[in-house]
């Protein structure tokens, strides 16, 4: 059919550090050597924690775990660009963000230990793990509405996976953000898989970034295994949001190097070649190579960073394992500001029952 072209759109792509850790100098964000080392240190800590929790899980000392292995550049690069007043609204694979923003490792572990006390973080403006895929993006939009209403100098960041972009809530969040011009940044960890479903079975769009066009907002695709590109793109998007120029969708292309969770076996649905391809693009090694080449890191310092990480993680494990069991009252006491009478009665009834039997085990204390 003959036609008239009505509008044209384009999608940008950003990459700074290549897979061998060589930087495109003119794209480098302004970060001091100390800052660069700090970013790297966070990445090492996240990786160390990940590996440790995987071990604990295999030993039955912690529950089902969703590793962030191979994706560290995204939560860490983006969180490093935030300011204290910014909000981070996570999915369940952003432990690196929590590390950067000061959530104790203990809290991260308690979550996977099935302990509700995990999410009372001692630092502010970070929402807990959100399991129903995609749903948390709307909370970030809502927080951004609050920021906008109060005319505050803050931004809300939402994290989600490639799978998350298929849920209706993702659509509604981006549409609200575009329409209301919200100070919001949407960060997609496109790790190529949603459990066993590959990216191409999630959407027929060539990129996730182009979904921004549907909402008339900024969209960019970033090398998600390049912590500096993630940092730079987030920085730019935060600045845009902070100055009233609206939301951005950042697609970070990465790879889930581990299983979906410890309950999954990824060898059932993907090839070792694919995993190997991405192993060669490891975000941690890439940053390490860059820092070594720049002389900002020595093998000795690297060793020291790793040892310190291990020590921190081991200390957290100790804390975790010595953490007192929760009280059964905890089942009841946090649903309402003031617990209704009927619910108090149910708690009493449970206590009365427990008084008639021996304890069930060491999972809880009455």
């Amino acid at each position, binding site marked *: 059919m003959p036609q008239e072209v009505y509008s044209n759109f384009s999608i940008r792509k950003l990459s700074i550090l290549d897979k061998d850790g060589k930087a495109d100098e003119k794209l480098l964000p302004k970060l001091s050597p100390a800052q660069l080392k700090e970013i790297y240190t966070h990445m090492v800590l996240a990786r160390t924690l990940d590996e440790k929790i995987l071990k604990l899980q295999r030993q039955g000392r912690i529950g089902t775990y969703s590793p962030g292995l191979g994706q560290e550049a995204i939560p860490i690069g983006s969180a490093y660009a935030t300011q204290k007043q910014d*909000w981070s*609204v996570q999915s369940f694979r952003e432990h690196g963000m929590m590390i950067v923003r000061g959530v104790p490792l203990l809290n991260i572990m308690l979550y996977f230990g099935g302990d*509700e*006390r995990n*999410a*009372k*973080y001692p630092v502010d403006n970070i*929402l*807990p793990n*959100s399991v*129903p895929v995609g*749903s948390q*993006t*709307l*909370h*970030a*939009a*809502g*927080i*951004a*509405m*609050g*920021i*906008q*209403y*109060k005319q505050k100098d803050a931004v*809300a960041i939402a994290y989600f996976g490639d799978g998350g972009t298929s849920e*209706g*809530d993702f659509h*509604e*969040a981006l*549409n*609200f953000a575009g*329409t*209301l011009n919200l100070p919001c940044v949407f960060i997609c960890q496109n790790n190529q898989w949603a459990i066993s479903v590959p990216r191409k079975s999630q959407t027929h769009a060539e990129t996730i970034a182009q979904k921004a066009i549907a909402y008339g907002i900024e969209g960019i695709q970033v090398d998600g295994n390049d912590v500096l590109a993630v940092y730079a793109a987030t920085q730019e998007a935060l600045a845009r949001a902070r100055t009233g120029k609206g939301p951005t969708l950042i697609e970070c292309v990465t790879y889930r190097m581990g299983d979906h969770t410890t309950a999954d076996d990824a060898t059932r649905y993907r090839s070792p070649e694919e995993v190997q391809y991405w192993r060669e693009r490891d975000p941690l090694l890439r940053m390490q190579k860059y820092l070594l080449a720049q002389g900002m890191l020595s093998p000795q310092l690297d060793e020291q960073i790793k040892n310190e990480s291990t020590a921190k993680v081991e200390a957290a494990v100790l804390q975790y394992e010595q953490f007192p069991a929760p009280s059964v009252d905890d089942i009841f006491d*946090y*649903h*309402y*500001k003031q617990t*209704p*009478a*009927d*619910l108090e009665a149910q708690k009493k009834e449970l206590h009365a029952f427990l008084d008639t039997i021996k304890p069930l085990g060491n999972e809880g204390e009455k």
Partner: protein
Amino acid sequence: MTKMNMVQALNSALMLEMESNKDVVVLGEDVGVDGGVFRVTEGLQSKYGKQRVIDTPLAESGIIGTSIGMAIYGLKPVAEVQFSGFIYPAFNQIVSHAARIRNRTRGKYASGIVVRTPCSGGVKALEHHSESTEAFFIHTPGLKVVMPASPYDAKGLLAAAIRDPDPVIFFEPLKLYRAYKEEVPEEAYTIPLGKAKVVQEGSDVTLIAWGSMVKTCQEALQLNAQNEKYSIELIDLRTLSPLDWPAVHKSVQKTGRCVIVQEAPKTLGLGAEIAARLAEEDLLSLKSPIVRVTGFDTMMPYFKLENYYIPSPERVLHGVKKAMQF
């Protein structure tokens, strides 16, 4: 004091709560310029501005999900879902998040949103516009559920819901919106959540209702006054969750008979929980089987037949007789 219908009473509550608390924001479909399709939010946008009275895109999950975010941020969002039959797209946000944020964060954050939504039938509306959906939310821990039955209660309960720290699903029986006017104070006041009202005292049988069924029961009381002249105690629950169990218990202890009137489908409507509690805790006081007068286990029929579905005063009285003549 002035005469107000329920729409005016609700509007007055919103006006006053927005006046006294800058953190109250109103959002939903058509709540701004149009003042809501039932005019409950009329005049709010011109008074408080577009930043506080927000016409959102047409997306209920979006409305509730962003309300949760605003509440976490510290605002007090009062969201409107245009009809309670359209609350389902937001069900995940309500059940998985609104009801749980406080527990999930051990009280660090809370999602004390208010969701206002017109409910129930009787006005010859199209499909999905006449639903009684309260049971879904009563079964969901972490929520409060309120349904006023009069203009006076509507204003006081909405103010209380807005001042409440917990998430409240606030049902507005649309049949009552303009059904009648009554004296309502112009100034702000609250009616405590969780407290039922004894509309009429009686000693033969307890009649329990909520929302527009309260008016239906009042009409049944009038019929009764002409004929059987049973001494009927009518209780308006007002808050459906948490239930004012002591009020129910006390009345049935006295009367020994209980008829529950509900417009929602019978199976697992709130009447089931009340009957179950009575069977658990008041069995020995019961002089006759519990009677439920309810909608049927079908969808609300299109309006040609809705008057056969919605309990009528005659059907209520039929139920009362059943309890009395046992």
